[in-house]
C-alpha cells in the first residue's frame, strides 16, 4: 500500500486530529501549487504589459521632442544627422513595399498549396510535403537573408541588369517563400476541418474536385484562411534579417521594389548595431519605430478578427 512516495498514507494517521491536520496541509499545498502555476500563466500577460510599457515610455519622451504631426508627414528620415528629420513614412514605405512583394508570392502559392494538399494530393504526397514545408518554415531568417543577397539578387540581375545589389524585390521574394509554410499550413488545417458531408453533398450533385474545393470548401473555411493571411501579413511586416541583409539600410521614400530601401525593422537593427548612448534621441527613435510596427500589426490582427467574425460559418 505504497501510494505516493514521501507521503504517509491515511492508514498511518491514527487520530481524528491528525487526519484533519494532514488534510489541511494538503489543501494548502494544493492551493500553493495552483498559485505558482497561475503565475507562470500570467508571465505572458506581463510580457505584453512590459512590451507596451517599454514602447510607450520611450516613445513619450521621443514625441516630446518630435511633434506627432511631423513624425507622420515628414518625407525625410535622418535621425542621426545634425539636420534631423523624423518622417516615419520613409521607413513605412519600405516595409509596405517589401511586404506587398512577399504577400504577392506567399498568398497565391500558399493558398494553392493548401487546397492541393487538403483536397487533391494523395495521402503519400501529403505525408511527405507537410514535414518538408515545416522544415522550410524552421530555417533561420538570417539564412534566407544570405540566400536573397548572394543567390536571388545575382539571379535577378541576370534577367534585369540594372538592378542594384540591394533591393526590395529579392528580399520580398525570399520573404514570400519563407511565409508560404505559415499560410499553407493554417489554411490547410482550416480546410480539413470542413466536415466531409459538405464535400459529399457537393460530389453528389455532380461537382468535380476543383468545383468542390473552390465553391464549397474554401468558402466554408474562409475564416480560417483569413487568419492564415493575417499571420502572413504580420510575419512580413515584422520580418527583419532578410531585409537588413538584402534590402540595404538606406532610408528611401519609394514604392518601387527595384530600389534599395530601409524598413522599420532594418532601421532598428542598424541603430542597435551602432553604439548609441542610452537615452539619446537616436536611442528613442527605435522605440517610436517599434511602436509604429506594433500598432501596425495590432491593426492587422483586429482587422483579421473582424474579418473572421464576418465570415465565420459554424457547422
Amino acid at each position, binding site marked *: 500500500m505504497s501510494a*505516493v512516495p514521501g507521503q504517509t498514507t*491515511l492508514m498511518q494517521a491514527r487520530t481524528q486530529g491528525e487526519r484533519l491536520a494532514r488534510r489541511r496541509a*494538503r489543501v494548502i*499545498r*494544493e492551493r500553493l*501549487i495552483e498559485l*505558482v*502555476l*497561475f503565475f*507562470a*500563466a500570467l*508571465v*505572458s*500577460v506581463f*510580457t*505584453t504589459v512590459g*512590451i507596451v510599457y*517599454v*514602447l510607450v515610455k520611450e516613445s513619450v519622451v521621443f514625441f516630446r521632442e518630435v511633434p506627432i504631426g511631423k513624425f507622420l508627414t515628414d518625407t525625410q528620415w535622418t535621425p542621426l544627422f545634425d539636420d534631423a528629420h523624423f518622417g516615419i513614412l520613409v521607413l513605412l514605405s519600405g516595409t509596405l513595399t517589401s511586404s506587398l512583394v512577399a504577400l504577392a508570392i506567399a498568398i497565391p*502559392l500558399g493558398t*494553392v498549396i493548401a*487546397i*492541393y*494538399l487538403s483536397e*487533391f*494530393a494523395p495521402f503519400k504526397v501529403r505525408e511527405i510535403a507537410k*514535414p518538408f*514545408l*515545416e*522544415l522550410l518554415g*524552421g*530555417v*533561420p*531568417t*538570417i*539564412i534566407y*537573408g*544570405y540566400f536573397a*543577397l*548572394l543567390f536571388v539578387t545575382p539571379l535577378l540581375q541576370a534577367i534585369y541588369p540594372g538592378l542594384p545589389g540591394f533591393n526590395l524585390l529579392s528580399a520580398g521574394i525570399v520573404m514570400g*517563400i519563407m511565409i*508560404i*509554410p505559415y499560410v499553407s499550413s493554417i489554411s490547410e488545417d482550416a480546410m480539413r476541418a470542413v466536415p466531409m458531408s459538405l464535400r459529399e453533398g457537393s460530389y453528389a450533385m455532380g461537382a*468535380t*474536385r*476543383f468545383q468542390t*474545393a473552390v465553391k464549397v470548401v474554401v468558402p466554408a473555411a474562409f475564416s480560417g484562411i483569413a487568419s492564415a493571411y493575417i499571420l502572413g501579413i504580420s510575419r512580413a511586416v*515584422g520580418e*527583419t*534579417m532578410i531585409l537588413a*541583409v538584402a534590402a540595404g539600410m538606406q532610408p528611401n521614400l519609394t514604392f518601387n521594389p527595384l530600389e534599395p530601401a530601409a524598413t522599420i*525593422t532594418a532601421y*532598428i537593427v542598424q541603430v*542597435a*548595431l551602432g553604439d548609441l548612448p542610452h537615452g539619446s534621441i537616436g536611442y528613442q527613435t527605435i*522605440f517610436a519605430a*517599434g511602436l509604429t510596427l*506594433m500598432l501596425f*500589426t495590432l491593426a492587422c*490582427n483586429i482587422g483579421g478578427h473582424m474579418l473572421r467574425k464576418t465570415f465565420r460559418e459554424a457547422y
Partner: protein
Amino acid sequence: MAAAAEVAQIRALIAAHKRWDTIFAVCGMLALMVGVLTFVALFLDMAVDGIGRLSWDFFTNFPSRRPGQAGILSAWVGSTLVMLVTAFFAVPLGVAAGVYLEEYAPKNWVTDVIEINITNLAGVPSIVYGLLALGLFVYQFGFGQSILSAGLTLALLILPVVIVATREAIRSIPQAIREGSYAVGATQWQTVRYHILPYSSAGILTGVIIGMARAIGETAPVITIGALTFIAFLPPAPVTPEPPFISFEWLLSPFSVMPIQMFNWTSRPEAAFHANAAAAGFVLVIMTLAMNGLAIWLRYRLRRNIKW
C-alpha cells in the same frame, strides 16, 4: 438523334470540368515544387559556398580580420550558453502555464485574457521582443548586454510555442485517466504530477525542440539588445578550480551567437567573408534542420504509437 447529341454535349462538359481538375492538380504540384526547389537551392548554395571553409579550425578559432583564419568559436559557445538560459526559463514556465490553462483554469475573464494574450504574443514580431529586452532587461533591471538578457528574451519569445505544445499534448489525454486517478484518492496535483505530465512528456518535448530550434536561429532580438558582432574571447568558465567551484559570472558576460556571426560576415563586402558566412550558415541550417527533423519524427511516432 437529339439524345445522342445531348449526351455528347454532356460528355464534353464533364471532360472540360475534369480538365480543370488536372490543371489545378498540376498547379498545386508546381507551387509545392517552388517551395521544395527553393529549399534545395538554399541548402546546396550554402553547402557549395561554405564546405571549403569547414574544418576543425573553423570551430576552434575566434573571428578574425583575416577571413582564412576566422572561426566561430565564440559564436557557438555563446549560442550554447544562451540556449541553456533560454531552456532553463522557457521550459518550466511554459509547461506550468500549459498545465494551469488545461487542468486548473476556471472559465472566467482572467483565463480569457491569458489565452487571448498568448495567441497575440505568437504574432508579435521578434524584434519587438528585442526592444522589450533592451528597455527592461538591459537598462531597467541592469542585466546589461549579457547572455542572461539574451536568454531571457528568447525564453519569452518561445514561451507561446512551449505553452501551445503543452496544452495540445495534455488535451489528447482522455478524461478517464484523470477520473481514475481521482477515484483512488489522488489530489489534483498528484494527478498532474504522476499521470498528466508523464503521459504528455513526448508531446511537450516536441514543442520544446521546435521552440529551441527557433530560438537558436533568431537574430533580430539578440542584435537589438546589443550582442557583439566581433568578439575574441570566451565568457568566464562556469566551473572554477577553487571553491565554490561553480561560477555564474558567465551570465553577465558579453557574447555573440551563431546567426549574428553569420550576419556580420554576410554584410561585409569581401567575397572571402561570404564563404565564412556560408560555412556558418551551413552549420546553423544543419543544426535547426536536425532539431526540427527530430521533433517531426517524434510527433510522427507519437501519433502512431499512442492508442488510448
